[in-house]
């Protein structure tokens, strides 16, 4: 199933990259990996590992405070009221540093590999 899976995965990724983050196909047999990053108690939980271009990051604010997940390079910036979540699609390889615009001590980083 590996070669077929890879083929499906590639086309799903291409579709994902062309679409907006909120319009990902959910029924495809092979999907980009979805990584969840929880924000709670004024910190970003452990950063996801094994992230590849095309993957989806779901930012979940479980805190009682509003937070943002903002890339230093501004490649994403989501502003989340308590209890809200949002998805972003990873678009380029390399190190991604992110932080909260409201609480600048809240930071995280993840390493993105090619697909």
């Amino acid at each position, binding site marked *: 199933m590996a070669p077929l899976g890879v083929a499906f995965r590639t086309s799903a990724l291409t579709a994902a990259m062309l679409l907006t983050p909120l319009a990902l196909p959910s029924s495809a047999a092979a999907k980009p990996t979805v990584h969840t990053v929880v924000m709670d*108690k*004024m910190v970003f939980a452990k950063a996801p590992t094994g992230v590849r271009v095309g993957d989806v990051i779901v930012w979940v604010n479980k805190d*009682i*405070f*509003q937070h*943002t997940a903002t890339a*230093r390079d*501004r490649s994403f*910036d989501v*502003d989340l009221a*308590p209890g809200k979540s949002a998805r972003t699609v990873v678009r380029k390889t390399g190190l991604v540093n992110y*932080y909260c*615009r*409201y*609480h*600048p*001590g*809240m930071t995280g980083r993840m390493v993105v590999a090619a697909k």
Partner: protein
Amino acid sequence: MIRRLTLAAGFAVALSGAAQAQDPGPSDPQIAHIAYTAGQIDIAAARQAIAKSRNKQVRAFAQEMIRDHAAVNDQALALVKRLNVTPEANPTSAALEAQGAQKLREMAKLKGAAFDRAYAQNEVAYHQTVNGALASALIPNADNAELKGLLQTGLRLFQEHQLHAEQLANGMGKKKRSSNNHGSHERPMQQPQNSGPY
């Protein structure tokens, strides 16, 4: 900034008075009252800033203070209710209230950039002072584990606000033409304020 130092010193004295080694330290109902009051004072300062300032960054910062301190104070109210504890007024919280009111009167006399700068500097000093009080007096003296936990959340909150206030104050120290690249207090995604006629 003599006024700022006065506020900080007054707070420190008031709190160290409550936390002397020999005396048992503030009780949980007193601690709850002090922590709640500290948040309310920052909310009052933020409301004043929103009423007086036209600076987008100042207004956004003030809104953040209201939002965050209201959130933690709501939790505090829910907690004391659940624990069946009545927050108890005490000399420390009374001193805080008096100092907060005094600060509002002083700030009422300022306007424009002078107000904005003073607000940012006050916020740095105030959060720094409350951080010290939380860490050295309030948290160590709290008996109830849930109250202690909430105070620890409050400490993290005040620390983050202090950092943010420092960025705000530093950004103002520079004149307009300097392009600062701190980023954190530029808020491109912030909704437009609906304050003034544009």
